Each structure stands twice: as structure tokens, then as C-alpha cells.
């Protein structure tokens, strides 16, 4: 039963990523060129509501379904891993023009080439796992 809910959320998210054009390489390039408000409006309005909603959840200690705690764990403190990891991610985001969510969406849209990008992303994840203990965090 729960699986169906996640499937529906996924379908909704997929349509949303495609229709918002957040899954378009062109929109990502345009964003990094500061050529339009579109992507900033999407992230900004999501954040505006996200910050308000998250603070209300915390203030009133609202529980998830079944009474479990909301998944709002604070992130581990560090600068290096976020700055270096984030920069590497940004290089890839601007080159492939897709972040992980849209990659899956575009696979469904029929872009065969995105499978190569996903393959690269899996390889990158794997190599990180292998090198993890040698990298500054």
C-alpha cells in the first residue's frame, strides 16, 4: 500500500521536474548565465515555503504519520567536504545539465544518452565510496 503512495509521489515529481523545465539542460545553463529568473524563482519559492513549513514543524513538534519523528537531522559540521564536494557537483551539474532527480526523469522521457550520464554518476558514487577514507571531510 505504502509502495503505491511512493510511486504516485514519484510520478508527480517526475511530471513536475519535466514541466517546470528544471530537467532541461538549457534551463540549467541559463541559470548559471543568470539569464532568467525562472530557476531562481523555482528554488526560491520552494525554499520560502520550505523554511516556513519546516520551522512550524519544529515549533509545534509535529510528528510524521504513525507518530514517528520527522527526518530533520542536522547535517554533520564541516566546511571542506561541503565546499569541495559541492564544487565538484556543480561542475558536473553544469556540464551534464542535470542533477540526480532530473536524470531519472529524462530516462523516462526517452533520452537514451542520459543513461550514459546515470552510468557516470553511478561510477562517481562508487569511486567516492572507495576513496572516502582518504578524502578530507
Amino acid at each position, binding site marked *: 500500500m505504502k509502495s503505491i503512495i511512493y510511486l504516485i509521489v514519484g510520478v508527480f515529481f517526475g511530471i513536475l521536474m*519535466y514541466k517546470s523545465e528544471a530537467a532541461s539542460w538549457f534551463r540549467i545553463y541559463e541559470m548559471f548565465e543568470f539569464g532568467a529568473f525562472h530557476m531562481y524563482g523555482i528554488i526560491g519559492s520552494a525554499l520560502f515555503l520550505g523554511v516556513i513549513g519546516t520551522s512550524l514543524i519544529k515549533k509545534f513538534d509535529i510528528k510524521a504519520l504513525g507518530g514517528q519523528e520527522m527526518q530533520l537531522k542536522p547535517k554533520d559540521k*564541516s566546511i571542506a567536504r561541503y565546499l569541495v564536494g559541492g564544487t565538484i557537483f556543480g561542475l558536473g551539474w553544469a556540464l551534464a545539465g542535470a542533477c540526480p532527480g532530473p536524470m531519472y526523469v529524462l530516462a523516462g522521457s526517452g533520452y537514451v544518452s542520459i543513461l550514459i550520464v546515470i552510468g557516470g554518476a553511478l561510477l562517481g558514487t562508487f569511486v567516492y565510496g572507495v576513496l572516502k577514507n582518504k578524502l578530507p571531510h
Partner: protein
Amino acid sequence: MEFIYEPWPWYVSGPLIALTMFVLLFLGKQFGMSSNLRTACAIGGAGKVSDFFKFDWKSQRWNLILVLGSVIGGFIAANYLSNNKVKINEDVALKLNSYGIESTQQAYLPTEIFSTESLSDPKVLAILIVGGFLVGFGARYAGGCTSGHAISGLSNLQLPSLIAVIGFFIGGLVMINFIYPLIFG
């Protein structure tokens, strides 16, 4: 009926992304798409090589189902809900034309990079593999991607997420300003 094919404006899309995040929170989950890549590695047996992939991946089943849903969503949107043409800023489009990307304003993704025929070009193949690799490596190093940091993390006012998002932009700006001219110039 034409409006069905129109893109959704930011003030519809952004709030719906927030809605997605809150629905997942209420279901007891955290919105994060790149963790599925780690799960996929774990399923593929990467735990033999690194402890990073030794975890109870079955607990991530919900997220894999979400991915399956988003693949279906991508199919529905591209085939029934879109004319698959993205209109961007004219000046930006002209700059892309000067890079040899002529499909601007007429496609959803640049055909010069994403058409199946272009796969025979080693340069295109390198762009796709390296781009994907950096996304996968960087997302795990930074502990999250756009959904985990830029949306969930910043909504929770996490300083680490702000640092990561600043990194996303440093990387993106370096790529399009310094590396694009080398690749496409």
C-alpha cells in the same frame, strides 16, 4: 487545450517542490535523490569493496520506488504534456549558438549532446560520462544534491547545506565561464 503543453511557471513549480518535500517528511522520509545512486551501488555488490556501501539498502526501497515513479512521470510529461521545446533568454540562446548548439529554443535537451546519433562523437561521450561522474562523486562527497541540500537542507536552515549550495554555484560558474569555452569554443 494548448495550455496543457505549456511549461509550468516558477510560482507553480517551486511550491509543488516544497509540497513534495513535505509529503515525504510526513511519510517519515527525507527528500534526497542522489542517495539512490549509493543504494544502486550497494545492490550491485559494491559493499565488497567499501564499507560505504554496506548498509541496509532495503530500508531505501521507498526511494527506489520514487525513482521508478519519476521515470514514469518523465515518460508521461514528455509524451502527453509537453511540446518538448524550452524557450530561454535570447542572449543566452545566441551564446549557445556561438558554441555550435543550434537546437536552442527548439528542443528540451540540446540534440548536439543528447541525440542518440551524437553518441558516436567521442567528445559528446566524454561530456556525458564526465558530467555524470562529477555529479555522482560530488553529491556523495557533499552528502547531498539539489534536493537534499538546496531544498531540504536549506529549508532546515542548515549551514552545511548553504556551504554546499555555494559550492554548486562555484562549480557551475567555473564550468560555463572557463571550461565551456575550451570544450565548445
